[in-house]
């Protein structure tokens, strides 16, 4: 903590005094200013001429705090396919996210409005791409908007953080990332900053998000004001650094711009951390425009610091970098970034060394020293690509141990991940080996801890794994750099300093039994120290006299607390939680059963009109239009009366004269000639309007030449039938021709080719006549005219 920095700058923005994470000019309370943003400003870096864009749900470009720095060239609306990224306004304010992120980067300073952005002189744009169907193509387009103009792309979104999703960039997005780092910023590489994930409460792990674990993205996590782990924080090995963000209710929050020209200090998850780093990287690029995408990552590794961030896994790797699965290399330090950047020499080219161990979990590598173009001696990102089959993915834990002995957890157990899909060429990434030597034996540890929900005898199978080492063949830093850090704050700690740290894993002394009863025991006392020694219970007793009873504060799953008798009683068969013993008193159901919310019972299937919601294991109502649905209320499989199924949506059955327009999702008028139709055109008629006759695929007022009017099949209405072949006009079906085409002659009201038959002698014509060939359509041109002319 620092108090009242004497040289601090003051701005007239109303929320400036609340921006504890940037400055400390509040005389009454101490604050954290150790991201050193103001120190970077005081060195003259405010983001001038650096362009940042926010890939999100749009940004409010006319917000008073954004309008000054708004850059239309750094903006695009992918959802609306135009150049205006203004969010879609609705009464629920769904699209606030991008505007909030944008303010954190580049809100104007000293304009008497709201806040001050980290890079308050940077250019800011928005790519509106989350307010619609997101596809691989939408993501790829977003990442490829003006790569030579935009320096930094900030994203605070990703696949679901529900603890059971494993998803990442598709083939186009992967290419877009690769193009960005190869060609963006005129070859220096686009900077992609990514929020690490909000699924802490769901036990999610950011290695299961292929965006934030990509080597091309800078993955940023969050810490609270007091350096605690926020409830939403996901751990993983690809996190590079951390910023402050919202924490518990008694800790201060982050302030930023909000939709409708407002300010907000409402809760922020990791979303705000990405733009904070985007802002700090903007200051850094102002200090040195020639930094490559890898230089920026090196700078973050080198300058971020553990400071007071609390985690029990801080370790020092063999290159001297302190790193944690929660915070990466620690809290970002803006001043250290700009100072280092201003004297930075670009790191040597990236080499990639790929090794596939043969049916072993260890591999001894030289770092591809035999191939100079691939030789990796000093590590940067390490990727492990895994093909693994497993019946319950969430039971897996994966660690990677470097030749230097650094152990990085690539994947932790995920309680909610019951998928049996395993991992199909999934790439795990770790930055924990940064700077270490690649050479030696690497070991992959896969631990399978069967949960009680699966058959423990069925084991998984690690089919293949690939070790992909990224780094340089020569030392990435010039020799003088290591002794050139400012104020000592950039130094990695000496071994002595590390030893002096308090051991956070210090063992606690165990309490010894001294005749006291267990805290769950009631007023009758106990005959031993444990909960099963109680003579009565404060809350509930579980079990029976034969199997011994124990006192518990809450009844376990499958039981409910009977307050009157202080007993845990069993729920009805199939109930996981209940409020009584009856079948209709269930609150949630055991696995494989679903709670019927209408009668509070547990069933194997849901009634018609309901679908099985797997995460809550309950029956939820389908959309009003659906007769039945699957997985989601709007994913219909059959429709109620008056609706018909189009894909998975129930659409109104349109009245006569209209058809259902798939694009506009409305009933749209048919062409005026149609009574019913499948589309707007004249050729889309199914039935004709009154006064029209169907002719081929259209409807006409009167039949065209070559057609005659007659009853349609079934006799319901009239339509135009085609006259016989070669007949220009006719009076009806069959031999009723009135006029023939050129080259044909009318013979017995039939059109016959004018050519005569050379060999139509008497015998031949007799054969034609006796076989009645001229009455058969197929033979009508078969010398008939010649034979008829000859009598």
């Amino acid at each position: 903590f620092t108090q009242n920095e004497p040289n601090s700058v003051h701005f007239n923005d109303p929320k400036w005094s609340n921006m504890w994470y940037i400055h400390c000019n509040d005389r009454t309370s101490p604050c954290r200013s150790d991201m050193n943003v103001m120190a970077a400003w005081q060195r003259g870096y405010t983001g001038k001429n650096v362009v940042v864009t926010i890939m999100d749900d749009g940004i409010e470009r006319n917000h008073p705090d954004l309008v000054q720095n708004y850059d239309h060239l750094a903006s695009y609306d992918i959802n609306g396919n135009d150049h205006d990224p203004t969010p879609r306004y609705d009464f629920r304010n769904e699209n606030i996210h991008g505007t909030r992120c944008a303010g954190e980067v580049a809100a104007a300073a000293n304009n008497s409005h709201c806040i001050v952005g980290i890079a308050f002189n940077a250019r800011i744009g928005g790519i509106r791409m989350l307010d619609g169907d997101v596809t691989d193509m939408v993501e790829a387009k977003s990442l490829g908007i003006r790569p030579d103009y935009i320096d930094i792309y900030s994203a605070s979104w990703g696949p679901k953080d529900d603890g059971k999703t494993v998803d990442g960039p598709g083939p186009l997005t992967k290419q877009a990332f690769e193009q960005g780092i190869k060609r963006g910023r005129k070859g220096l590489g686009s900077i992609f900053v990514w929020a690490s994930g909000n699924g802490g409460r769901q036990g999610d792990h950011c290695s299961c998000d292929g965006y934030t674990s990509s080597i091309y993205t800078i993955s940023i996590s969050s810490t609270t004001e007091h350096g605690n782990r926020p409830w939403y924080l996901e751990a993983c090995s690809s996190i590079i650094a951390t910023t402050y963000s919202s924490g518990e209710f008694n800790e201060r929050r982050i302030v930023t711009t909000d939709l409708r020209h407002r300010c907000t200090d409402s809760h922020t998850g990791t979303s705000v951390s990405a733009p904070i780093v985007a802002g700090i990287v903007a200051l850094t690029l102002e200090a040195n425009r020639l930094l490559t995408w890898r230089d920026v990552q090196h700078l973050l590794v080198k300058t971020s610091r553990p400071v007071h961030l609390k985690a029990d896994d801080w370790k020092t790797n063999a290159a001297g970098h302190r790193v944690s699965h929660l915070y990466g290399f620690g809290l970002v330090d803006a001043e250290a970034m700009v100072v280092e950047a201003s004297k930075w020499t670009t790191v040597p080219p990236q080499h990639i060394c790929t090794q596939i161990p043969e049916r072993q979990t260890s591999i001894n590598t030289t770092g591809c020293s035999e191939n100079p173009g691939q030789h990796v001696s000093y590590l940067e990102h390490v990727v492990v690509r895994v093909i693994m089959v497993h019946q319950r993915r969430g039971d897996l834990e994966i660690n990677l141990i470097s030749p230097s002995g650094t152990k990085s957890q690539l994947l932790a157990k995920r309680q909610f991940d019951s998928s049996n899909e395993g991992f199909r060429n999934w790439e795990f990434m770790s930055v924990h080996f940064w700077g270490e030597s690649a050479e030696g034996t690497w070991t992959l540890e896969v631990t399978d801890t069967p949960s009680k929900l699966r058959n423990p005898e069925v084991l998984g199978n690690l089919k293949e794994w690939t070790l992909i080492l990224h780094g340089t063949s020569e030392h990435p830093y010039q020799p003088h750099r290591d002794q050139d850090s400012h104020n000592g704050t950039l130094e990695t700690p000496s071994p002595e300093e590390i030893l002096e740290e308090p051991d956070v894993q210090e063992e606690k002394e165990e309490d010894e039994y001294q005749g006291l009863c267990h805290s769950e025991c009631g007023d009758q006392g106990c005959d031993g120290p444990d909960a099963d020694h109680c003579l009565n219970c404060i809350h509930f007793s579980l079990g029976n006299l034969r199997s011994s009873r124990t006192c518990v504060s809450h009844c376990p799953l499958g039981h409910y607390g009977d307050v009157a008798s202080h007993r845990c009683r069993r729920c009805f068969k199939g109930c996981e939680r209940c409020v009584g013993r009856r079948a209709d008193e269930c609150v949630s159901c055991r696995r494989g059963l679903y709670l019927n919310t209408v009668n509070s019972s547990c069933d194997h299937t849901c009634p018609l009109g309901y679908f099985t919601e797997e995460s809550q294991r309950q029956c939820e109502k389908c959309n009003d239009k659906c007769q039945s649905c699957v997985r989601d209320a709007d994913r219909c499989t059959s429709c109620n009366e008056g609706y018909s199924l189009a894909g998975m949506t129930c659409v109104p059955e349109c009245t006569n004269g209209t058809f259902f327009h798939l694009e506009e999702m409305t009933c749209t008028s048919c062409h005026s000639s149609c009574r019913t139709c499948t589309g707007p055109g004249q050729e889309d008629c199914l039935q004709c309007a009154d006064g029209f006759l169907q002719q081929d695929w259209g409807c006409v007022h009167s039949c065209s030449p070559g057609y005659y009017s007659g009853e349609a099949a079934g006799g319901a209405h009239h339509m135009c039938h085609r006259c016989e072949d070669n007949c220009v006009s006719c009076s009806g079906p069959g031999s009723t021709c009135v006029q023939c085409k050129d080259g044909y002659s009318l013979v017995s009201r039939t059109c016959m080719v004018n050519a005569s038959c050379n060999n139509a002698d008497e015998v031949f014509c007799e054969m034609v006549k006796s076989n009645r060939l001229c009455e058969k359509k197929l033979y009508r041109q078969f010398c008939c005219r010649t034979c008829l002319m000859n009598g």
Partner: protein
Amino acid sequence: VSGHGDVYTNHWAVRVTGGPQQADRVAAKYGYVNLGQIGSLDHHYHFHHSRVVRRAAYSQKGPHRFIHMDPEVEWAQQQIIKPRVKR
């Protein structure tokens, strides 16, 4: 056919060499409209088919799918909705 609850859109990503005019021709042949290059990815084009349901649980059959077999088309992928959450 999707086995994972995927939702198919009426947008395709298609790789065609030979330039935008060639892409236009390929698109027209199967009833698509070429909406242009995908970001900065060379030879990759965004095709849209207005006669295919905008969102469907299945990849619908029909003549539009012949594009996948066209010798001018190196790669084509019907776009699937990827659930994304703001953090």
